[in-house]
C-alpha cells in the first residue's frame, strides 16, 4: 500500500506492506506533492528482526522510521530520542537513558502545571533546524506510553535527566550538549548523512539551552526544572 504523510513539514510518500503503520500514522496523512519517497520490502523487515518476537507490522514501522531518518537528515531534520512537551507554545525536551525517568518527570510536570502542559511526543520526536528556528515535531513513533500528537513548537530547552536524592539543575556547555545529543540521535549509515547529523547537532547544542537535571520523583523536581528552563 502507498500513502502520503507529512512529517516535520515534509510530505513523504511511503510504500509498505502491513496495515499496522497505516493505523499508527493515520493522523499524519497529507495530500501534497511528496518531497521524499521510500519503500519497504519484506527483506528489510526480516533484517530488522533481531529476536524473533516482534510482529512484522511493528518491525516495518521501525524500518520506515530508519529509512525516513536517512532521508530527512538531508533536509536538516533529525530524530532526537527524547520526550518533547509544550508549555505556552514552546517545546521542552527531556532526554535520559531508558528507565531513568523521563516519563515520570513529565507526569510530574502534568500533575503540577496541569493543562498548560501539552505532549508533542514521548519518545522519538523529529527536530528541524533552520537559520531562524529549531523546532520539535510530533511523530507517530511514540514509545511505550503512546504519548504523541501531530503538533510542533520551537525548542526552548533540552534537559538531561539523572536521578539523585535532591533536586538540582545546572546549565551544560555546548560541548557536553553535543556529546549527549550524539548518543540520542539516529546514526545515518552514509558518510553524508553522518556528517550532516554532526553539523545539525552542533547547531542545536550551540543555539538551544541545555540543562543537567538531577532529581527525585517529588513535585519539587518539576518545579526546579520548570523554573530553570522557563527562566522563571
Amino acid at each position, binding site marked *: 500500500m502507498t500513502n502520503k504523510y507529512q512529517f516535520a513539514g515534509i510530505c513523504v510518500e511511503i510504500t509498505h506492506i502491513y496495515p499496522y503503520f497505516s493505523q499508527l500514522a493515520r493522523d499524519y496523512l497529507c495530500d501534497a506533492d511528496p518531497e521524499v519517497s521510500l519503500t519497504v520490502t519484506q527483506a528489510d523487515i526480516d533484517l530488522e528482526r533481531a529476536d524473533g518476537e516482534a510482529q512484522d507490522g511493528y518491525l516495518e514501522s521501525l524500518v520506515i522510521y530508519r529509512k525516513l531518518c536517512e532521508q530527512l537528515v538531508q533536509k536538516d531534520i533529525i530524530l532526537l530520542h527524547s520526550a518533547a512537551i509544550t508549555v505556552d507554545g514552546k517545546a521542552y525536551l527531556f532526554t535520559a537513558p531508558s528507565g531513568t525517568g523521563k516519563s515520570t518527570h513529565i507526569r510530574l510536570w502534568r500533575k503540577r502545571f496541569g493543562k498548560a502542559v501539552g505532549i508533542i511526543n514521548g519518545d522519538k520526536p523529529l527536530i528541524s533546524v533552520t537559520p531562524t528556528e529549531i523546532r520539535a515535531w510530533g511523530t507517530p513513533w511514540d514509545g511505550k506510553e503512546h504519548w504523541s500528537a501531530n503538533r510542533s513548537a520551537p525548542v526552548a530547552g533540552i534537559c538531561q535527566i539523572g536521578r539523585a536524592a535532591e533536586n538540582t539543575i545546572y546549565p551544560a556547555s555546548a560541548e557536553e550538549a*553535543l556529546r549527549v545529543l*550524539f548518543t540520542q540521535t539516529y*546514526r545515518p*549509515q552514509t*558518510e553524508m548523512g*553522518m556528517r550532516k547529523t*554532526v553539523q545539525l547537532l*552542533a547547531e542545536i547544542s550551540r543555539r538551544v539551552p541545555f540543562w543537567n537535571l538531577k532529581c527525585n520523583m517529588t513535585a519539587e523536581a518539576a518545579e526546579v526544572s520548570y523554573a530553570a528552563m522557563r527562566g522563571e
Partner: protein
Amino acid sequence: MRLKDGVIFTKVADETIVVTVGEAAEAFRGMIKLNSTGAFIAEHMLQDTTKEELAAALRQEYEVDEATAMEAVASIVEKFESVELIRE
C-alpha cells in the same frame, strides 16, 4: 598503519569532530574532538602511513621540532588505537 574505513571528519567552528560509519562504527560509536593539529595528523592517517611520515608531514605544515612532532603524532595515534580505529 591507517584508519579503518568509515572514519569521518567534520569541521564544526574551529574544531574537528570525528565520528564513524560502516566498518569503523563496528569498533567505535562515539565522538572524538580534535584541534587543528590533531585533525591534520589524523586526516593523514586516512592513507597508509607511519609515525615518522606523519611527524615529517606535521613539521612541513607547522613550525615544530622533531621531538614535539613525534609526541603529537604518538598522542593522536594512541587516541585512535585506544578506540580500535587503526588498521595495522
